[in-house]
């Protein structure tokens, strides 16, 4: 397991609480503001997930799609997002793990080996690829490269997946596993706790890996319900929505800070 994630889950366990993982698209609305947002998020979140935008995303709701387009317009690319994360991590005083969330094309175009190496040199702790397929040659290569440098490869499982698929995914997954709570797009519905319970049971049956739950978690009450079942909860659209509505507002980071502070109140087990 990646050391920073290991510490995050151990500390949360000791404090009898769950972990909050916040997502924001890198360079949304621009490099400078995004840097401030990510620093603010690192103060409140157990881990920070940074999106490398892709303009042909197949799993994101319009909230994240709009963020992708804002970031691309601001000149976002893979190189700049790595630079952003490296700079943010050098500014923060804690060991909050940072993950990259993206699609396979930006990774493939950057070159898989080079991407993995860059994760290491930019202090990236983990990677989530939404459209990676366990059996693709790219996934095999990426999985091998990330293992070598101890960068977490966080895989997704969904309510439509059976136990055989979950078992296969667990073999590739490291540090924690991402449970998609419903069949749909990011932030388009309410979290589905029935699904979360069902998938978590299947995961627990086969592995001790920590479980993070995402999709449809926006409020303190959502966080509280999810944390009763899982180890971590991922909040994305709620944060990105604030960025979208307040891109030019001087109080943007403050607003994100108070939103996250409130969500944290739901983390106690």
């Amino acid at each position, binding site marked *: 397991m990646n050391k920073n994630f290991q510490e995050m889950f151990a500390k949360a366990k000791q404090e009898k609480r769950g972990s909050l993982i916040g997502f924001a698209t890198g360079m949304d609305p621009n490099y400078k503001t995004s840097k401030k947002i990510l620093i603010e998020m690192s103060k409140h979140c157990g881990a920070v997930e940074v999106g490398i935008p892709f303009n*042909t*995303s*197949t*799993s994101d709701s319009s909230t994240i799609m709009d963020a992708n*387009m804002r970031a691309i317009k601001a000149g976002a690319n893979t190189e700049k997002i790595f630079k952003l994360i490296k700079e943010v991590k050098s500014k923060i005083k804690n060991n909050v793990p940072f993950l990259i969330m993206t699609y396979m094309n930006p990774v493939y175009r950057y070159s898989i080996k080079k991407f993995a190496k860059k994760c290491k040199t930019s202090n990236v702790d983990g990677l989530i690829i939404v459209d990676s397929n366990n059996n693709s040659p790219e996934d095999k290569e990426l999985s091998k490269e990330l293992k070598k440098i101890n960068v977490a490869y966080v895989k997704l499982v969904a309510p439509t997946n059976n136990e055989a698929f979950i078992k296969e995914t667990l073999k590739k997954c490291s540090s924690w596993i991402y449970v998609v709570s419903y*069949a749909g797009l990011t932030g388009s519905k309410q979290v589905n706790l029935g699904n979360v319970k069902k998938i978590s049971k299947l995961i627990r049956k086969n592995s001790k890996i920590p479980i993070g739950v995402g999709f449809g978690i926006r409020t303190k009450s959502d966080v509280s319900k999810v944390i009763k079942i899982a180890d971590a909860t991922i909040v994305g659209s709620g944060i990105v929505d604030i960025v979208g509505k307040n891109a030019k507002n001087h109080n943007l980071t403050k607003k994100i800070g108070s939103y996250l502070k409130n969500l944290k109140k739901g983390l106690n087990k």
Partner: protein
Amino acid sequence: MKIPPFKEINPPKNGYWINPKTKETYGGQYISPLLIPNLQKVEKCFEKAIKDKKFMRELEEKLLTFIGVNTPLLRSKELEEIAGGQKKVGKIYLKRTDLHHDSSHKPVNSFSSCYMAKHIFKAKKIICETGASMHSRSVAAACAMLEMDCEVHIGAVDAEKVSLNKDISELYGAKIVVVHESTKSLLPAMASALRSWQSNPDAMYVVGSVAGPSPYPRMVRTWASVIGRIAKQQFKQITGKVPSTLFCVCGGGSNLMSMAYPLLKDKTEIFAVESAGEGIPTGRHGATILGGSKMGILLGFKSKVVMKSAQIAESLTEASGLDFAAVGPEVAYLHDIRRIKFRSTTDMEAKKTFLMCCEKLGIVPAIEACYVINAALKEIKKRKNPRENHLIHLCGSGESNVNRMIKFKRENE
């Protein structure tokens, strides 16, 4: 009439076509795990369907009587004259796919996929994307006939360009979702349809091109190849041989593969024609292979893609049906192994060809078909071989282009 049976002559391996020399892989299934079970179900249903003799017999009966797939081959002495005369360039035949029900090559795949969705997948709803709305129109017609719900995703720019086909789709009962994201064309429409499928996993997604995650590229070309199987048989009956050359237009490649697939193992030289838009050097074009594409992964598959950095680039062409910044994986593979050659036509050349077809052939062709007719004439003129027999795919009718083309004619008179 009996449709010549399908033979698998270019099978993918685990969803990939692999260049034996370079080991480059084309195809695959790059999609959220949420959709993996759906894709597995589509694949199972497809395998079951093509082996089910009763299902295939009933489907072929519908393709013959509802879609009217037995369209003629038209010898075009007018095009021979334009190219330099039969004595100099040989004979030119047009495959009149424009005479299908709903006026394009699209209904063959659309109807077959919907028929499978209804009887084997047991779906109640179909989700699809569309560019020129030829696909949505034919999916909507199939859904009307088969009593299924239909949801169409169309880019806002295309919705305006081809409003007739969009309106016909609506008349057939389709729910139209206009996509305002990104380039507002076919690519974001396909991403939007895939996203909708994630929220409706009980529905079946029907792709209009030989693109998308496995098994779609193989399934679409297999269904669509009915057109080429019939054309090959007709051509042999008329000329005693397979065509010397085949010309098809290529956006994603469904039109090309529908005709080319049954000829892959024959001696026919196959030409795919892309839209050069305002000219390839301007960067404002719809040409993937000739326009500087690289290997990329999008919309569930790996293939040749036009990109700006790691982002999918905007494709710019007059023809909504060619407005796609990638080609299907099997097409890219066939180009890579040098089985298919590529040519291009600019928007201006295509528009002039449109008017020429109306005035000289008495045919209103889809603007997409004008790119191929223009490029074919240039190539045939260059070859100057009187012993050759050429086949051009007239892939659709141009009613939905009339508004824009009459404006073009009046402005240029």
